[in-house]
Every structure is written in C-alpha cells, then in structure tokens.
C-alpha cells in the first residue's frame, strides 16, 4: 500500500516538475510583428534651376513639374521639408519657415498639382508639412515649387537647398 502511494506521489511529482518552469514563465513576452507591405517612391526630375532671380522675386515651376512615381503597396502620407536651415553657397541665405523673404532670407512653397495660391504648402525646415495626404497605393502624383527670393542679396553666388519628400504608411 505504501509502495503504491509513494509510487503515485513520485509519478505526480514527475508529471508536474517539467511544468514548473512553464508556470514561472511570463506570458507578457515582447512581441514584434509587421505587415508585409512596402513603401516605394522616386522623384523626377531631381533638380530645378531658378536661374538669375531678382530681389523679392517669386519665380515658380508649374505645379506638375516634379513627378512622384509611387509604387507603394499601401496608402501613404507624404510630407515636404528642406534638409537644412540655410541655403548653401557664398553668403548663405536663411531659410524662412514662414516663406517670408528678408535680407539674405528666402522661402519656398509647394503645390500638389493644383493652382498656385490655392492649397500652397510652406516648405519648412523644422516641421515637415503634409503635401499628399492618404495617397492611394500605386498612384503617382505631381507637385511644383515656388521661390520667395530675398529682399536683398549680399553676393551673387549661386545658392541651393535640398527639398525632401518623405513617404510613410498612412
């Protein structure tokens, strides 16, 4: 009788022992998941030369000058910004985040395929602005740029700044 009881207790202990570490495990392990989607945009052309500009001039491209080829598999939000706070070349220009020109201070606006003055987006350095919201997957779009030239220049050296279009899943 005792042997049977000891045997059963041993069997019970052996049954539960492998389970103990499992019971001690946390059920809140870090989980990492991702959806099999991809983001794909390219731009063409990749530059535009405003050429010689006069003080306080506001030359612009057409609002469809730049084409974003969008092959993304999901809808995306697309923002526009400049990558530096100044325009390089000679005496640098300050980039105005309000598109308000001043002495050696220039600004930029963008427009997504519409009419200048309607729905223009100020191109900022500090805060990227949405230019194409909830853009449908695999749907191309266009935009243009307008320069707000400084009210006065310190030199005649060519200036440049990089405009960045960023796409992320909506």
């Amino acid at each position, binding site marked *: 009788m005792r042997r049977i009881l000891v045997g059963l207790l041993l069997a019970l202990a052996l*049954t539960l022992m492998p389970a103990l570490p499992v019971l001690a495990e946390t059920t809140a392990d870090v989980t990492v998941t991702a959806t099999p989607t991809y983001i794909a945009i*390219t731009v063409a052309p990749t530059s535009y030369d405003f050429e010689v500009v006069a003080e306080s001039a506001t030359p612009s491209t057409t609002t469809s000058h730049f084409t974003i080829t969008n092959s993304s598999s999901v809808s995306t939000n697309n923002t526009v910004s400049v990558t530096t706070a100044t325009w390089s070349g000679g005496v640098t220009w300050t980039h105005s985040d309000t598109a308000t020109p001043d002495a050696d201070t220039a600004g930029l606006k963008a427009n997504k395929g519409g009419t200048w003055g309607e729905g223009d987006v100020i191109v900022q350095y500090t805060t990227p602005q949405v230019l194409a919201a909830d853009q449908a997957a695999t749907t191309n779009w266009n935009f243009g740029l307008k320069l707000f030239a400084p009210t006065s220049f310190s030199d005649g050296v060519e200036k440049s700044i990089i*405009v960045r279009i960023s796409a992320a899943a909506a």
Partner: protein
Amino acid sequence: MLKKVVCYLLALALLGVVGCSQQKVPENLTPPPAEESTGEPPIDRTWISPGKVMVGNFYPGARAEWNLTIHNGKDTPADFAVSYRVPDYVAEGFEKAPPEAQDWVIIADPTPVLAPKETKDILVFLDMPKTAKIESKKWEFWIAVMEQTGGMVVTEMCSRWLVSMR
C-alpha cells in the same frame, strides 16, 4: 481509501497538465493580415519594407529587433542612408518617442551600398536600458531610408515603429 487517493492524485495531475497547456499559448504572435498588399514588390523600383513594425509588451531592459529590407531598383549601384527619425505624425493613441529613444535604436548598417537590383536586410534593434523611464505607454518613431543622389529634390521612405509598453 486507496481508490480515493489515486483518483484525487490523477485529477490533480490532469488539472496541472491542462493548466500548463493553456499557459503556453502565446499572445499576439499572429501577424495581422496585410492591408492593400498587391503582391511582390517591383524589381525595377527602389523600395523598403515593412511599412510598419508593431512592438508589444515592451519594457525597460527589453530588446526588440526586425529586419528592414531595402531594394535598389536601379541599374546602377546606390548609396543609402538609414537613420532614426522623429515622426512627422503618429498613430491614434500614440505619442512621439522621447528624445532619448534615439539612443535606444541601433541600425546594423546605416550606410548600405546596394548593387543594381540588389535586396538587402538591415537589422534594426530597439534596446531600452533597464534604467530608462518613460511616461508614455504608446510611442512611435520612424526609420528613414534616403538614397544619396546629390539632387536638389530627394525622396525619403520611412518605416514606422509603433511601441506599446506593457
């Protein structure tokens, strides 16, 4: 008496086994279905994947990692810059990651060079120190990929990381 003891012990063992099997069921390990996916990515376009990474049950001292895939769709080699990025916007209920989060993100190869039509996985680690303190329960950061073209207008593709603390 012996029968009662035997039955009691067997019932206990059975309950233990059943209970353990329920404990082993993992939570949230099934990826959600893809939305708007149109199949294989194009070989002749430059792309990144995935668009979103969800990290759940995260906590100070924990580590999460995921491969960011980059494809060079051009016929020429391409230089890329992969970097941590403050998000332009966040998902509903999420906040922008605190500034110190930038130090928690490690990109295995931040300046990959891809041959024509090459696809490469770049491992991204999120390694939060045990001593880190964070107010937000849900926060977001982005990993940005930008090709170094030298043009005046450039494009950037971003992978969103949405982190939920436990």
